[in-house]
Structures are given as C-alpha cells and as structure tokens.
C-alpha cells in the first residue's frame, strides 16, 4: 500500500508525519533538530530516502542536514555558502547600498534526476548548487549578476530567494522567485537569467510595472504543463501561459488577493489552491475564518473550502512554503499554519482535518508520496 510522508519545518524543529494511503491515522516523528529553525525540508524525487534539511538559528547560523534513510538518521553536511567573487551591494530598505550577506537557506530543491544534486535559495538572495549531496556549495552567480542585482531590495521578511522550480521537460530551464525582486528564468542551466515580471503590477513600488522590484510570494507549476505558472504575489494572484514571459491577473472573485501560498492539484493542472490573507498589515484570514480557495478553471472563478477548518476566531497565517499536495489517486492537499496546525484534505480540498494541532510555527510543508 502507498504511504505519505509530510515533511514539516517549524520555528523550533522538524517533524515527519507518516500515514498509509488512507491518510486517516498518522504517526508523528520529531522534533528533529529541536530548538532550531527549520526553514525547509525536502526529499529527492529520484531517491525518496534522501532528504535535505535547512537548519538555522540566530546564534549559530546555518547548518545543513541530510538523511539517506528517510529521516531515521541524519548527517551534518556543508554549511559554507560564499558568494562568488566580490559580493557587491544591493539596496537596503532605505534605498542605500548594502553589502550582500549570507543569512540562511530558505528553500532546497533536489534535482529531478540525481539525488546528489540540490539547489539552495538563500538570503541575501542568491542561488547555490551542490553536486555532492550537500557537502560543498557553489553559487550560480549569473542570477545575482543580472544587471538589476544592485537594485534588488528586501521585503519585510528579508531579501530571500524562496522559490525554485525545475522544469521536468527541459533540464536547462529553471524558475526562481525573490522577495522583493520578482521572478526570473534561466534557459541555459543557470548561466544567464531573465526577469519574467511583465504583466505584474505593484502599487507599492515607484514604477508599478518595473522590470524588477515585485514582491513575489510563491510560484507553482504542474509538472505536466511546465510552461504554465501560477503566482501568489504580495497582492494579486497571477498566471502565465508562456513560461513567465507575460502574466495576467486571475484573482477573480477572491475576497482578498493577498496571501503567501499557492499550489496546483496533482492530477488537474487547472485546479489551483490559495489561502487568502486579509492584508499586508494584517496577516490573518478575513473575518477570523480559515478558508482555502480552490479554482478549477486555472483562476478567476474561486470557491471557498471550509469544511473542517475553523470558521470563527482564527487568526493564523499560512507562510509561502507551507502548502503541498500528494500524488495519490485522490489528491491530498496539506498546509501548515503559524498556529502550529497542519491540516490535510484527502479529497482535493472538500474536507479538512488537522493532523497535528500544536506544533511550533510552521514554516514549510512538503509531501512525499511513496509506493
């Protein structure tokens, strides 16, 4: 029987939630790395026993962990992230030049084909790659050296590279997103990068349609249609049908189009999910009602999903990397909250139930669907 692992990164450790394909009874393993911030934990698509973890703390900085046995045991691997060449400067919050400084790894993206290859998106924004299972890291400097780099500015959460998407149909193509620079694409394996922000409109920057400067919160793609991208921007839900060359807004009838997460159904490329958040100053659901919104039309037409979710006095947030789907026949959808709940729907969002209720602040959720 198939099995599901939910990999949960929290403010105070990592947890692995395990169930069989029925997704009714769950075992909780953790906290792993207790007391440390776990920004992200993700398994290799090629070898699901190979897990990578970004572990950090305000005292001791960045640590990277790796497991070769699905999280039963862990090995500390390389944590030396050095920017290529002279780091240079980006803009600080007040517009003054600020030196590029490594702070932490936000997102880890293992290769689709080689368990020893993994990408790391870091703060201050840059993309690193390891070819030896995480022991050594090397920057792909073409991104940061894109002409716009000195003008990138941090968002409220820091200047983080938080989204990495690998194109399963083209090993040279990759998408990344940075708060608050925007989205970028490479078509040559990371040598050169192109900003893909045309069509985005952000009233909070001097030129609302600038080439860079947009606060992209997350991007999702269905592997069967790698040229179609869905974006939750600071405000606005967007889609692109041409690999990011042009975006159009699909917020439609959402009650608020601010939010952090966005994801795509495992088997229906036009079914997408967001969790609307009231505003950029009030990071909680509208009216205290936690509602996932689903569109079966690739955006514009949205329906609230509420069954099993708190519909009063709920003031949690759902952070950008804290939603994922499984690949079982009936697609499961998962998300974690800043209140420590991890909710699961075994039926594509129709019904929800908490797997756990009282974890530390959930920073990230990933799902492994195992045979």
């Amino acid at each position, binding site marked *: 029987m198939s099995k599901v692992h939910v990999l949960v990164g929290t403010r105070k450790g990592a947890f692995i939630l395990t169930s069989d394909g029925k997704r009714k009874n769950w075992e909780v393993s953790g906290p792993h790395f207790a007391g440390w911030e776990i920004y992200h934990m993700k398994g290799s698509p090629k070898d699901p026993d190979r897990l990578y973890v970004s572990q950090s703390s305000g005292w*001791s900085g960045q640590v990277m962990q790796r497991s070769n046995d699905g999280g039963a045991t862990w090995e*500390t691997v390389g944590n*030396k992230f050095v920017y290529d060449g002279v780091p240079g400067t980006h803009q600080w919050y007040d517009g003054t030049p600020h030196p590029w400084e490594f702070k932490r790894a936000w997102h880890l993206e293992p290769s689709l084909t080689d368990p020893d290859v993994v990408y790391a998106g870091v703060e201050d924004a840059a993309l690193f790659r390891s070819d030896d299972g995480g022991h050594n890291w090397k920057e792909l400097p073409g991104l940061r050296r894109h002409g716009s780099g000195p003008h990138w500015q941090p968002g409220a959460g820091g200047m983080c590279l938080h989204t990495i998407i690998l194109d399963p149909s083209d090993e040279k193509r990759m998408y990344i997103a940075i708060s608050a620079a925007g989205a970028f694409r490479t078509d040559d394996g990371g040598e050169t990068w192109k900003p893909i922000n045309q069509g985005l409109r952000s009233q909070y920057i001097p030129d609302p349609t600038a080439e860079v400067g947009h606060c992209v919160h997350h991007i999702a793609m269905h592997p069967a249609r790698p040229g179609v991208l869905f974006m939750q921007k600071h405000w606005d839900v967007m889609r692109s049908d041409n690999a990011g060359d042009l975006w159009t807004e699909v917020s439609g009838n959402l009650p608020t189009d601010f939010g952090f997460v966005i994801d795509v159904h495992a088997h229906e490329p036009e079914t997408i999910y967001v969790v609307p958040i009231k505003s950029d100053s009030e990071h909680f659901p509208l009216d205290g009602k936690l509602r996932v919104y689903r569109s079966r039309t690739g955006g514009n037409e949205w329906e609230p999903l509420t069954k099993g979710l708190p519909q009063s006095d709920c003031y949690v947030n759902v952070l950008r990397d804290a939603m994922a789907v499984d690949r079982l026949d009936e697609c499961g959808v998962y998300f974690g909250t800043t209140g420590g709940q991890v909710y699961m729907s075994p039926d594509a969002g129709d019904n929800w139930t908490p797997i756990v209720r009282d974890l530390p602040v959930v920073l990230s959720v990933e799902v492994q669907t195992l045979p």
Partner: protein
Amino acid sequence: MMVRVALPAHLRVLAHVQGEVKVQVDGAVTQRTVLNAVEAAYPMLNGTIRDHTTQQRRAFMRFFACERDLSHESPDAPLPVEVAEGKEPLLVIGAIAGG
C-alpha cells in the same frame, strides 16, 4: 594541553556530545587554537561559533572563562592559565536574546 570546552546545549546536540568536550591544543592556548581544535574534532560545528570566512565570533556567541567575559579579547590572546591547564573550561555561551 588538554583543554576543556563547555558548548551551549544546541551545539552539544549538533555535535552529538554530552557535557564538556576536551580537545588537545599544541602550543599557545588561545581562542583561535582552541576553536581550531574543537572544529577539527567536531567538523559539524564549523561556521556555528565563528564565521567560516572571517573567523570572527558570531554576534550572539560569547566566550567566558574564570568568571571573565573574553568575547572581545583578541582571538590570539592567551586564555587564562587555568583554562590552558585544564582546571577551568572555556565556556561558549549563546547570548540571551529574544526573551
């Protein structure tokens, strides 16, 4: 010299040790030589006490010994004799921050 080092709890977990660690230091006993020995014995601690590249103390890590705060001493200054002789540990402390 066998030098005693007390690590903070989160680094003891990372290094898979309990209690104090003891490291062999040849020559002058300084912050630098002691930390070099600690990192050689426990490579998973590389970068967690001092920066990989600059070798400077991380901002929220402090060094105490013999009831003195040595955090702002030169990394090449001799540590107290009691530390060099193994009578007292070098305390690596995570600063109290954040409430």
